[in-house]
């Protein structure tokens, strides 16, 4: 997919671009607000990664402009401002996700990929399927093979989110934000505990393990044979 990075820190941007290219994406870089605005207006990108504080033109202003022109390209905001209020402001201006600097590249990559997928219409399905695991969003039932798996409401939401992004890496922070709506880092790895419980319910006793831990990044649910 095509990613536009609008970021004035050239070194950070080049690391970012390198990482995204290695992950198989094509990347353009704009070093200031004006250039970013022009490239973004030209269109054709799947995801925009926009730094909040830019020379010449504020990152939020660029996003607001895009949204005024009915451009729904997903935007990930990067910012050194990490207060709750800053995040709310960023999302209100039309951003789709918000990442506070400093961030881990794996976190950014996972979010960019999830954002790009969001633009595709597949997420309105009522039933998610990964291998023989299926989740019915209407009846709130989960089954694997012919066997129904009873889940707690929170476990259901966790699985639902992961299956919605099947084949993509979801990070612990993404899970915490999207399943629990918490925007802070707990000291202990609470998410790992929840995921391992979920894994025990959906993977235990089955030969093919669907829920995989991606080292240094997060988790992924997929049917990819390994």
């Amino acid at each position: 997919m095509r990613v536009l990075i609008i970021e004035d820190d050239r070194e950070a941007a080049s690391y970012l671009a390198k990482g995204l290219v290695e992950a198989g994406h094509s990347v353009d870089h704009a070093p200031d607000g004006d250039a970013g605005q022009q490239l973004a207006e030209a269109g054709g990108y799947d995801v925009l990664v926009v730094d909040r504080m830019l020379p010449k033109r504020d990152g939020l202003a660029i996003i607001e402009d895009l949204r005024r022109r009915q451009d729904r390209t997903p935007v990930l905001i990067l910012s050194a401002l990490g207060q709750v209020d800053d995040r709310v402001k960023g999302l209100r201006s039309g951003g789709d996700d918000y990442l506070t600097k400093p961030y881990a590249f794996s976190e950014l990559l996972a979010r960019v990929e999830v954002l790009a997928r969001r633009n595709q219409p597949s997420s309105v399905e009522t039933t998610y399927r990964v291998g023989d695991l299926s989740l019915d969003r209407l009846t709130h039932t989960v089954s694997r093979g012919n066997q129904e798996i009873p889940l707690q409401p929170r476990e259901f939401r966790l699985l639902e989110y992961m299956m919605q992004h099947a084949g993509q890496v979801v990070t612990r922070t993404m899970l915490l934000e999207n399943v629990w709506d918490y925007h802070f880092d707990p000291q202990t790895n609470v998410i790992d505990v929840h995921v391992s419980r979920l894994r025990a319910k959906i993977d235990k006793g089955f030969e093919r393990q669907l829920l995989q831990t991606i080292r240094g990044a997060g988790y992924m649910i997929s049917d990819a044979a390994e």
Partner: protein
Amino acid sequence: MTPLNRIGMIRTTAFKLAIVYLLAFTGLTAFLIGYISYNTNALLDRQLDATITAEINSLTEQYRRGGIRQLVSSVELRSRRPGASLYLVNDFSGRSIVGNVAGLLPGSAMDIPDGQPVHVTYYRLDGDQALEYDAIVRIYALPGGFRMLVGRDIAEREEFNRVIRDAAQFSVLVMVALGLATWIFVSRAVLKRVENVAATSRHIMSGDLSRRLEVTGSGDEFDDLANSLNEMLARIEALMIGLKEVSDDIAHDLKTPLNRLRTRLEATLRGPADATVYRDAIAASIGEADQLIQVFDALLRIARMEAGSSGDEMVPLDAAEIVEDLADLYEPVVEDAGGVLRKAVDGPLPIAGNRTLISQALANLIDNAIKYGLPAGEDAPGGEQRPVTIKGLREGDEIRLCVADSGPGIPEADHARALQRFVRLEQSRTLPGSGLGLSLVSAIARLHGGRLVLADAKPGLEVTLILPARANEKKAVEDAHDRGERPAG
């Protein structure tokens, strides 16, 4: 005195006060003296007039009874009394028949016998001389062509007026003297203290924060002012000391890991160029950097919250929901750590606050409870599961959110210290942590107008986040919080 000094003197409050007092008192005195003088004069005039009228009536009666002869003898008799009135009786040709008045000045009113009071100057026989005096007289025409003058000398009244004038002059002198005294008193006694305050302030501004303003103990406004300012100074000094401590702490708690990071990288660089070694070192360094970022973030958050400028939105919330959600998040974690999460929530618990911050505060408390209350590899006696208790309840106007563990707790004496930044009590030094957890919670509590209280849970530590209950429940509805990111259900 140079002109500049003179302007400076005029500008002082003392000078202005003195002038104002002077003008006010002069005005008041002038009014009083004028009023008294005017009324006394009128009274004296009326008395003079009444005396004259009475004399005329009496003499006219004498004349009517005994003719000119009795009038003359009566006048002569009266003239001899001390403090006698003025008398003069003329015949029709204008010759003086009897009287104690030597004569009237030319143009006198003797020709107009209309009985009206007239102001005249006359001569009085005093030994050989005829002295000039002022008098109020009435001239009365008697039957038979005689004219009778009766009057009173007004020297008394004049004397009174002179006394008043003297009094006025004396008063002005006294006023000026008082004005000067006021000036001296105000500038010396009162403004000197203001200047002292200013001088001390300058000292303090130049860096000596331990200085305090003088309190005389007189209990006046200046002492009040000095006391308030001293309290403010004490607060500022405490803040400054706090800031210094924080910078020392930052130096220690950030520099130590930074140094570790640097040493690790340096050692790796010096060592063999082996990819695996490099990878491990880099991974460890990233971990170290993450830890640093966490400490830094926590510090920034605390600082911003303590400055009261976090900018985070305060919305109506139900703390019971927050506690339930967190209990839901942490229950498996506590179980994995070998404990059991007990929950006692008596909702609804209306508060005004920020969900993320309060959640973070509670999460920190639960993290602590797990870390210190459920030490790894230590089983509770009797194989029982150690509880971590979360409570949410309302007590009057307060919402109390408690997290209690059943670990070793913190000695009572260390409770206050435990809330300070970077303080890591002896028993916790071996466990990972920034030492900022509780102070972050404490800052969040203060930002919400609440406080953090540590108590002995016997056994264990009970930490209570006390928040003020939200007063009007209506606002909850109107304030539709923008929580669009939260998935439905």
